[in-house]
């Protein structure tokens, strides 16, 4: 990829950030998350030691929801939206390739999610410091894992949006999210359970091996409880990054290929 290609991708990515900054839904989701985080100390708890863990877990859970909502909404709406408004025609009639557009939009959405996570991180770390007197930069690990999972969700939402409406795209990505979180339990049991219908076994097995295990990215509880039981090290984070990069690349490749062949 030459300098022009990188520049085109960067231009598309930045246009997504600008677009998000002009969307009310972006601010609504961000503001709602911050407000809810500020209310987490109201969760009833027995003692102060437990309260900070519960608060951190709830806040990270809320942050995950915010990031996933942003990822899925932006991912599923960006292409159908530009097609519906016909802005895509002006854009793709310039000397850019469709995959540059696709990759640029993906990078832009991930950048928007990352920016939101950084803002939430600042709120979170200040809040924990002021409320409990604890400086907790380790929370960044959980947010990094959330970002990686969101990056996979963006690639899936964009893939769905190549041919489906935003609503169907959001529903399909939601299904993907649920399937990938239950695969270790539900799909595994479906695949291995004694006396199970062979068709169910085959389908469960297929999805078990095809889908990423998104539950791996859920390190909120571990981080919220101060990594007392299990420490999340650089190796674990690198592994998560590799998994996210691999699955994102696969979904981006399929999505980009389909988008390249699609009539606009």
């Amino acid at each position, binding site marked *: 990829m030459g300098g*022009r290609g990188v*520049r*085109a991708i960067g*231009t598309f990515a930045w*246009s997504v950030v*600008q*677009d998000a900054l*002009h969307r009310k839904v972006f601010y609504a989701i961000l503001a709602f998350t911050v407000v809810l985080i500020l209310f987490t100390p109201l969760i009833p708890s027995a003692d102060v030691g437990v309260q900070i863990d519960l608060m951190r877990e709830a806040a990270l859970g809320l942050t995950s929801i915010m990031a996933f909502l942003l990822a899925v909404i932006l991912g599923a709406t960006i292409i159908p939206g530009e097609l519906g*408004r*016909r*802005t895509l*025609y*002006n*854009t*793709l*009639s*310039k*000397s*850019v*390739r469709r995959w540059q557009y696709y990759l640029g939009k993906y990078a832009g959405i991930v950048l928007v999610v990352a920016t939101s996570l950084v803002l939430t991180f600042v709120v979170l770390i200040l809040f924990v410091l002021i409320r409990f007197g604890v400086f907790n930069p380790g929370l960044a690990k959980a947010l990094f894992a959330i970002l990686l999972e969101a990056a996979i969700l963006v690639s899936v939402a964009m893939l769905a949006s190549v041919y489906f409406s935003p609503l169907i795209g959001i529903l399909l990505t939601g299904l993907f999210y649920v399937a990938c979180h239950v695969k270790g339990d539900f799909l595994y049991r479906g695949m291995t359970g004694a006396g199970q219908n062979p068709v169910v076994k085959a389908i469960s097995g297929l999805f078990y091996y095809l889908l990423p295990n998104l539950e791996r990215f859920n390190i909120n509880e571990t981080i919220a409880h101060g990594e007392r039981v299990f420490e999340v090290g650089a190796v674990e984070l690198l592994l998560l990054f590799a998994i996210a990069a691999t699955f994102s690349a696969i979904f981006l490749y399929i999505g980009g290929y389909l988008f390249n*062949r699609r*009539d*606009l």
Partner: protein
Amino acid sequence: METVLSIEDLHKEYSGGWRKPPRTALAGLNLVVPRGKTIGLLGPNGAGKTTTLKCIMGLIRPQAGKIDLFGGEVTGAGVRKSIGFLPEQPYFDLYLTPRKLLAYYGRLSGMHEADIAARTAFLLNLVGMGEEADLSMDKYSKGMLQRIGLAQALISQPEFLVLDEPSSGLDPLGKLQVRDLLLGLKGGGTTILLSSHQLSEIEEICDGVAIIHKGANIASGGLDELLRPREEYEISLEKSPPPAAVELPASASWADPAQTRLLVNKGELNEALRSLLERGALVAEVRQRRMTLEEYFVEQVGSEGWEVGE
């Protein structure tokens, strides 16, 4: 003659969806656009004009046929740097200002930042939007957006312009400005392919037309060769004779209620002139009538489904 665009036997069918038959949009379309010429694409609604333009721009993939642009492949992104495209009723992210929008398209066209700034200023003045360059476009009228659309099509100084209904949504003054702008570009050597419902626009701007009907090019050529002279003359009068005082030949008929323009067949022209002059009429001009584009179009396509622009 060197050609900028050559289309051979283009076929495109859209799937009709669940349990619906496919719809044929292009059925063996051929088209040639010579360098430096302005060609108008005419056709009834649904004839395949927009599909043709989208195929040229690589937005739609035809099932069969060949599109040759500057001797390259249509899907190549590089070749699009030499083409400016204005889609029908263009729309933009309205929170942007025209200056930012053109800068965005300039970057996508691979232009340097310094060139973008200069070109943007030039184009905004060209389309009469220089004063609104830094206002967000959310309050813009359809006509203003159309002008910005034209500016974005011109951002990379294209050799070839592909315009889908460039005057759509413009008021009479706006249409005049677009016409002047296109005539200026044509004068500068830009090759233009424009689809339009405005027959007067086509007649004034274009060197030739291609009439598309049911996905095929049913007639094409230079306007002078297509709009052949008729065996009919028009006599324009500076002073009309008193009503009912003149005995006119059988083929003669007044073209207007004020009786200042008389239409008459070639064989009876002298007789009509003599009769008018004898009754004290003052003749200003006598000219052979030429077929209008509208008449030619209706002759080719039939009046069915045709909506003539104002």
